[in-house]
């Protein structure tokens, strides 16, 4: 890889329940600057743990994690989290704060002036394609799932991070919304020059959005690479994961005529 990786895991391990549950087992993984990496795996594969180790929501037991060249153990975890955007599964919005309050939270924690935050909130609403006036002062429960997730993305971007961590950001959405949001984010990622690690259990989504895909199973990193690199993998589990999108593609092209209303 030409440039230094922005996030690097080296032989990282993490267990829970006094060693009884191994969540992450000797994982080494580099994420290059500007890359959109998807981590794919079933539930309990350790993908969420791996993500959270990067901003020290969870502390590693062994191995080394570096972010922007610094060992995360040497960085204050609070400051680390403020410079990394994090998008939670189903939003994780604060239910008592308005859309503007949610989006502006990290700048506020960083001591940005209210007027500046207000301008930034409007920019971000434009960025995630939400109309300023109707949405600014709404509470999260007044939004649809897709809108909530757009606010979640805006909140993560508020402090202009270079890195985004996303935990199944589009998992709970209906397929159409999911598709739209995925495309929009992909565009944002490119436009803002972000480095993104995104968790998903959906291989199709990973193939469509990500530059590279890392596959996890039982805490171990089974394979990593571009979709075409992965398709050459001999691993049975990887093959199985790729089979679903392949079959879907075949069936779809058989069922849907090339030209038509769609």
């Amino acid at each position, binding site marked *: 890889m030409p440039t230094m990786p922005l996030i690097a895991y080296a032989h990282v391990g993490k267990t829970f329940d006094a060693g009884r549950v191994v969540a992450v087992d000797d994982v080494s993984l580099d994420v290059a600057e500007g890359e959109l990496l998807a981590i794919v795996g079933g539930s309990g594969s350790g993908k969420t743990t791996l993500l959270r180790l990067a*901003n020290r*929501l969870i502390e590693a037991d062994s191995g080394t994690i570096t972010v922007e060249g610094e060992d995360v153990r040497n960085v204050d975890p*609070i400051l680390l989290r403020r410079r990394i955007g994090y998008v*939670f599964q189903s939003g*994780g919005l604060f239910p*008592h704060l308005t859309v503007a309050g949610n989006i502006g939270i990290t700048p506020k*924690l960083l001591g940005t002036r209210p007027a500046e935050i207000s301008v930034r909130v409007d920019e971000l609403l434009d960025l995630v394609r939400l109309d300023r006036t109707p949405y600014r002062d709404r509470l999260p429960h007044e939004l649809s799932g897709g809108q909530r997730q757009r606010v979640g993305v805006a909140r993560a971007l508020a402090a202009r991070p270079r890195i985004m961590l996303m935990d199944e950001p589009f998992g709970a959405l209906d397929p159409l919304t999911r598709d739209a949001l995925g495309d929009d984010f992909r565009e944002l990622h490119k436009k803002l020059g972000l480095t993104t690690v995104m968790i998903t259990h959906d291989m199709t989504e990973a193939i469509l959005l990500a530059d590279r895909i890392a596959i996890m199973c039982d805490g171990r990193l089974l394979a990593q690479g571009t979709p075409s690199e992965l398709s050459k993998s001999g691993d049975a589990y990887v093959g199985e994961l790729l089979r679903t999108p392949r079959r879907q593609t075949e069936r779809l092209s058989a069922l849907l005529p090339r030209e038509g209303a769609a």
Partner: protein
Amino acid sequence: MSIFADPRWGEALGHLPDYLGNHVRVSVAALALGLLVSLPLAIIARHRPVMRGALLGLASIVQTVPGLALLALFYPLLLALAALSLSWFGVSFSAFGFLPAVLALALYSMLPVLRNTITGLQGVDAAILEAAQGVGMTPRQSLFTVELPLALPVMMAGIRTSAVWVIGTATLSTPIGQTSLGNYIFAGLQTQNWVFVLFGCVAAAVLALLVDQLLALIENGLRNRSRFRATLGSVGIAALVVATLAPNLVRPQTNYIIGAKTFAEQYVLSALMVQRLKEAGLSATTREGLGSNVIFEALAADDIDFYIDYSGTLWANQFHRTDIKPRQELLAELKTILAKQNITLLGELGFENAYALVMPRKRADQLGIRTIADLASRAANMSIAGDYEFFSRPEWTALRRAYGLSFRGQRQMQPDFMYAAVASGEVDVIAGYTSDGLIAKYDLVTLGDPRHAIPPYDAILLLAPKRANDEALRKALTPLLGKIDIATMREANLRASGNDAASSPDAVAQWLWEKVGKR
């Protein structure tokens, strides 16, 4: 005639600024202190299961202690602390009234606040807490900007419960010397003035409801982020506090505080003394409904200025004397003992209010019982009733020892009710008071005490140390000395036990002075 035409409503209303003001003062202070302690404790304990269990357990135990007992316990505790602080640091404080009431009520207020705060904080969705961490909040920022706001409705429910409890329980702070709306209830109960009892209950209930609703308004405002409602509620609470406290601040400070114990005779005599002082151009106020032990300590500590006690009560209870001396000798010795504590025994009023065993005249005649000695052989088949203090007083021990008394059963009763109880045969004998007018009313007889187990109980006027050389006060009170004979006091007490306007302590005191003033 409407029941509201009763002039006692007017009298009750006249006391309202004082009683309500004091009630609000003690409740607000207790609640504020309770919150100040409980909220941080709950926040600290929320992630510590052991501490949480211990705290909630402790608060629950406090809650099971009856309010009156809790308040009563704080008085001796503070008295001991005050003595300790005086000997260690040379600073003393008053263990009477406000302080013990606030501390006990604050303790009482803690459970709902603790429980609801902990429950509310634990109820915050784990995903929200992760999000707070994830956006880079410190634990403190997470607590104040996310957890507390989200737990607020549950916490406010606890605070409201606790406010209602405190306001209700504050009525019980009267016996430890804190004026409150309980003054109506205690005085009304003792003098059978049901107008007062009702007035006190309704006033306390209205106050509790009002505060509850204002807190609800604040809660609603905070929850819906309506600054208007939150402000309105806060302004309401503030206005209530100011409105009830202002009259107390503006009112000229009264010079003398007269103590009164918990029975009708004491209410009448304290009212009489207020009238006498007023006549002499001195202002005075009463602190009524005080327990026997509280009142003496309060005098010794200069918390009240003077009150009427009974020689035998002090002799046996306060100074733990078991030897019985002739009346004058006992008085003289008592005077010397009191002088050592710088308390002045100004003189006797002229009557005795002794404990005596009392039974219906007819029954006594039938059984040929004239004295306690005659009673002793029949006591095994009889039951006895006494007031709340009697069976734990040394006089009772002395009586049993002197006559070998052993009753089939004993009961404690509200003094006003026990005369009716013995007259109707509900109990066989009661430990009554010789000055009580009800003895004549129910045709009861007091049994002789040939072995002198019960000491004499001259009504005596005691002055606090700081009033020892107060000539104006002595001059105002001296006309009372030696004037009131037992027959007149009995009649006064009988009048006070009535249930009409002429039976208010004030009215009876006036009647009493008309009878004895010119003597």
